[in-house]
């Protein structure tokens, strides 16, 4: 029997372990007023990195605000915000190398932006126009970018978790100094795929960073009805994985944890689990009304922990930012987003010929036949198919 699985400690009286036996501290570096804790060890961060992080925060806030507005005006059909979780998403993305592969859930567009996804491209996807990389097939916000190593979002929850294990294993086998980073919510961590993915990563020594955004809710379901154990972190330990819990509203703590997780994963060819404790400040999505399941007071309490504000105060304390520059940045992005909306809205939908593409590498004869029948039909009823009629 291998020693790794045997515990030589024996006792002679029944003695159960419970969740309290597992003491999991939370890493905090930045205080509410923008100063750091006295004993805190800072991550690697200079002014340039800090600026890029803050820039991404502002862009994301502005984008979320504007696009939620656009959804309410009926210009796009659906939206989800990252609001309240910017530190978790951007702090972790900032610790990565561009060659690290990101497998996100759906609330992590800030990580994609950090990688350099242009504003117009966000809009092309959200408006499903002919320049959308996803060719108008998915709902708004299901981005993906081959160039930026950001795999396309799939709605079925948690499916990306075991996939990340496989991606990372592939990177290892090819001798790349890169990891796979997998984002998911504490809700998704209940799926079977989560358990399968973590177990395989630990056993197969796959350099994967599993990043859980524990934001308190899965749609209407609060964490008390999601799990009974000590959060998601305890499961990492259970699977034999390096694990850390961080304050997910603390940019510096997330950055520090992810930088070290990455270094560890590469050095030891092992996975790491990071649980970032945060709060979903907005609704689940534009289709959801949180007043049916949580109180205004609770939301207001969490507003006090705004991660962007905390980081901004730190930047100001450092002398790296001032209010005027901040206001200009907001204004710049408001204009940029608005003008990108206007442009993207005007572009036509992808051509109808694309409807049968990418099912396989090449359309099958049956698909070609279906397309030609469809086109003939559209020509007969052009008014019924405004997206494609007149362009056949």
């Amino acid at each position, binding site marked *: 029997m291998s020693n790794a699985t045997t515990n030589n400690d024996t006792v002679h009286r029944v003695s159960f372990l419970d969740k309290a036996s597992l003491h999991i501290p939370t890493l905090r570096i930045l205080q509410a007023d923008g100063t750091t804790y006295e004993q805190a060890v800072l991550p690697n961060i200079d002014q340039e990195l800090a600026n890029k992080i803050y820039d991404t925060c502002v862009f994301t806030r502005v984008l979320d605000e504007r696009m939620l507005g656009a959804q309410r005006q009926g210009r796009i*059909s*659906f939206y989800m915000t990252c609001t309240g979780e910017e530190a978790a998403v951007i702090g972790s993305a900032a610790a990565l190398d561009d060659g690290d592969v990101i497998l996100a859930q759906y609330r992590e567009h800030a990580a994609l932006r950090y990688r350099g996804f242009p504003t117009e491209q966000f809009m092309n996807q959200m408006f*499903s126009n002919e320049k959308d990389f996803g060719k*108008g*097939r*998915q*709902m708004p916000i*299901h981005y993906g970018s081959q160039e930026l190593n950001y795999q396309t979002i*799939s*709605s*079925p*929850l948690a499916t990306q978790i075991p996939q990340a294990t496989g991606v990372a294993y592939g990177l290892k086998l090819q001798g790349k100094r890169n990891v796979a980073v997998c984002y998911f919510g504490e*809700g*998704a961590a*209940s*799926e*079977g*795929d989560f358990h399968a993915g973590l177990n395989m990563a630990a056993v197969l020594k796959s350099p994967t960073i599993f990043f859980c955004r524990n934001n308190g809710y*899965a*749609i*209407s*379901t609060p964490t008390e*009805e*999601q*799990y009974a154990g000590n959060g998601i972190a305890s499961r990492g330990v259970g699977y034999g994985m390096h694990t850390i819990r961080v304050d997910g509203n603390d940019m510096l703590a997330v950055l520090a944890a992810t930088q070290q997780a990455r270094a560890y994963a590469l050095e030891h060819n092992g996975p790491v689990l990071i649980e970032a404790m945060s709060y979903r400040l907005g609704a689940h999505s534009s*289709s*959801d009304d949180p007043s*049916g*399941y949580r109180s205004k007071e609770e939301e207001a309490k969490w507003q006090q922990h705004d991660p962007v504000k905390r980081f901004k105060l730190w930047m100001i304390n450092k002398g790296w930012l001032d209010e005027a520059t901040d206001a200009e940045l907001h204004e710049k992005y408001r204009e940029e987003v608005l003008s990108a909306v206007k442009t993207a809205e005007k572009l036509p*939908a*992808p051509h*109808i010929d694309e*409807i*049968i593409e990418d*099912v396989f590498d090449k359309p*099958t004869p*049956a*698909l070609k036949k*279906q397309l030609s029948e*469809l086109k003939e*039909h*559209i020509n*007969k*009823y052009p008014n*019924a*198919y405004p*997206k*494609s009629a007149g362009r056949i």
Partner: protein
Amino acid sequence: MAQMNMLHAINEALSIEMEKNQSMIVFGEDVGHFGGVFRATSGLQEKFGKERCFNTPLTEQGIAGFANGYAAAGLTAVAEIQFADYIFPAFDQIVNESAKFRYRSGNQFDVGGLTFRTPYGGGIAGGHYHSQSPEAYFTQTPGLKVVVPRNPEQAKGLLLAAMRDPNPVVFFEPKRLYRASVGEVPEGDYEIELGKAEVVKQGTDITVLAWGAQMEIVENACKKAEKEGISCEIIDLRSLAPWDVDTVAASVKKTGRLLINHEAPLTGGFAGEIAATIQQECFLYLESPISRVCGLDTPYPLIHEKEYMPDEHKTYEAIKASVGF
């Protein structure tokens, strides 16, 4: 009779049965206090308590496995899968376990008290992960009943029958009709027998067959065809497994023609099964090939939803082609 939408009718059916059957529990993601993302279970937790109507952790595999266990103890479980697109993590528990409990144990165990409710179908700008119609995967599994209602009255009566049926039932609810379909619904308790199709409208020239949300579409297409003097007999299959061969065959023997419409992709869809069976039953009566108007053989697209759908224009054209064959 009261006017209500389909969600309300489903909610009434659940409430009636929970009242009558103390063992019955209702559960799934967001199903408890919030009443489900579509609000089909609204108020049930308040009425029946947290032990009988509750949120589960986010795991369809877990929900289905748990439901199997509860039902195998001889009790009644109604599990909600939030979207039919997300039934696949539960697929193993449903097709290998729910479906085979009775057969593999020589009838020592069964999960007859189990019903899976799940919203299916497109037309809601949901792209390919909120729009699928996966019924055919389940109709190919012996041991499962598959039911799809078309309006509030049918939803209530069929769901009451499904919950009481001594077999596991997968109950697909057409989500685009949840609020859009409003109609008269009988008060109190009533059942609509599973396994029976309904002839919704009599006709003589062609039998037009569909189920669920597509019923509205074929009805519109038939109205257009009638204006051109084509008399359509419209059938709502209602139950896909088992399905009512006799009613369909009798109709096709009368009309000589059959058109089947479903939203799922054409290839491997349930229309193929119906066409093959009816060809065998009615070969000498057929005056034109059985035609299928279905989704394309692609995943469900977002921006080209209209083009993808087997809509009333396509159905109308197919009716004319069949009659003019």
